[in-house]
């Protein structure tokens, strides 16, 4: 269980997060959605322990404040939104970065790369890959860091900031399948998403953010309504349901060919 209560985050004088409550269960995929600048990355970064905050965050029942980086690293891995990379490391070396010497088994690296569809690319230089390939290498790195979704009875966590933002539909679905499998084996997943349809298809719980607040957190069917999404995103959103009651959204472009 990952619980964040009364979280306030300020940058200089500006308040970015206004005392919000967020919770995520192990064994589930929890998505954070909302317009650009709503504070999604700030919330994920705060859950990752990146910045000072007011309030209280517990991961698997333990306060993250004052936890040592090495201890946190064993329990959760983080995929940031932007990933700079200095120096010409190979793909295999990047994936290995999150591993301790003792755990750095070649098969973990190869299997993690296989899962994200990059099998056989170990020796390529990271900096010579495409944007989407780089994103998947980092995903493989993060997966390798928390390879077993449950260790010693405690769930491990993936905190992912827009893990599919540079990917085509095939790789988007592949990543969603990875994330579902991780949760299915008892791990916890928190991911920031922009694609509403992928979110509705893959998440067990959705937190909708707007202007530094969580305006709703519930199962996708309850959050995906014309009123909630329309108000948060500030545009007309028509929510439909598939026959199996999965919500989907068709954006309405004024004057577009669809009329």
């Amino acid at each position: 269980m990952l619980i964040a209560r009364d979280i306030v985050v300020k940058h200089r004088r500006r308040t970015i997060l206004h005392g919000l409550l967020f919770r995520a269960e192990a064994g589930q995929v929890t998505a954070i959605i909302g317009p650009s600048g709503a504070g999604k990355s700030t919330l994920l970064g705060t859950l990752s322990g990146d910045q000072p905050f007011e309030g209280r965050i517990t991961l698997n029942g333990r306060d993250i404040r004052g936890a040592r980086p090495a201890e946190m690293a064993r329990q959760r891995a983080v995929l940031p939104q932007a990933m700079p990379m200095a120096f010409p490391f190979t793909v295999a070396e990047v994936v290995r970065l999150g591993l301790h010497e003792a755990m750095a088994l070649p098969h973990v690296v190869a299997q993690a790369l296989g899962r994200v569809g990059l099998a056989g690319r170990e020796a390529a230089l990271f900096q010579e890959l495409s944007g989407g390939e780089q994103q998947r290498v980092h995903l493989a790195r993060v997966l390798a860091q928390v390879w077993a979704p449950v260790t010693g009875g405690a769930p491990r966590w993936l905190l992912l900031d827009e893990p599919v933002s540079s990917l085509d539909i095939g790789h988007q679905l592949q990543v969603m399948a990875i994330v579902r499998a991780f949760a299915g084996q008892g791990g916890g997943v928190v991911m920031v998403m922009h694609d509403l349809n992928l979110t509705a298809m893959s998440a067990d719980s959705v937190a909708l953010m707007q202007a530094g607040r969580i305006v709703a957190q519930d199962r996708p069917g309850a959050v995906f309504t014309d009123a909630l999404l329309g108000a948060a995103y500030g545009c007309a959103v028509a929510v439909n349901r598939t026959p199996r009651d999965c919500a989907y959204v068709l954006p309405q472009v004024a004057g577009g060919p669809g009329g």
Partner: protein
Amino acid sequence: MVAVSQTWARAPGDRSAAARRLTAVLALMLALAALAGLAAGASGTSLWSALADLAAGRELSLRDRVVLWDIRLPRVMMGCLVGAALAVSGAVLQGLFRNPLVDPGIVGVSAGASLGAVVAIVLGGSVAVIPAQWLVPVAAFAGAWAATLTLYRIATRAGRTSVATMLLAGIALTALAMALTGLLVYMADDAQLRDFTFWNMGSLSGASWSKLAVAAPLIGLPLLAAPALARGLNGLALGEAAAGHIGIEVQRLKAAAVLIVAAATGAAVAVSGGIGFVGIVVPHLLRLVSGPDHRYLLPNAALLGAALLVLADLASRTVIAPAELPIGIITAVIGGPFFLYVLLRQRGLVDL
């Protein structure tokens, strides 16, 4: 060879086997460079005939003993220490700033060390707390430390380093340190001026066993400590936040890196004056051959830096023998164009 290729087959993209082989090659190269440094010199003494004398059980002539034991050997060892210190400082600074263009001489760390050394030479007489032979190196360490910290504070915001700010801040720091150095030299009396000029020539010619006894611990300790930074510096390549996510104590790592660089550069500058570009050339060459993994880069940089500086020193005392060329001129003639080449190759990546 069979074992090596099997390792490769099991872990493609892992260059650690190549890096370890490189370590062996570099160690051999250093041994050969050291032998050459012992064998060659302005005097007619021959290492080989001396060795032949020893092998035959004959006493060495006093002259041979002085040249080999009291002049060449400390000088070669000092070259090893200084070269290793400069190369490792460069590699650590580059890892800290996540940029291959950083060199202690370019970003003002060496200038800070020089200022510290000059302060010690000119004002040192009034400070009796530290024994005289330690005063200059310790002051150089303090100067290098202050310069590195200032540089990091200026160039890094929220865990990101601006290359432009860093290089410009390095220019400003160097200019400031040189102006203050000039002021102190102006204030100095004749004896101090002689000390300063001798030191400022930037060569290994003053190497002696007593200087070595001071420099060895000051340089050796940071060199031994540097490999402990390796995993942290690797993680730092992802940026500060992500380094924290994989379990690295980022603040502690940065503080340790700054201290190690300051100690190694400070001591190197104190004993040999300013020798530039070793810190940029050596790590860059090694990354080309065996990749940027600091677990291998740091020890290999120590070996290659030592070998190159011993060879540069050999060139400095043989090219126009019996006179000597300052070694800083030799490293600059090789390193300056090399730096420009790296800069040009980086131009696409570094947004100046």
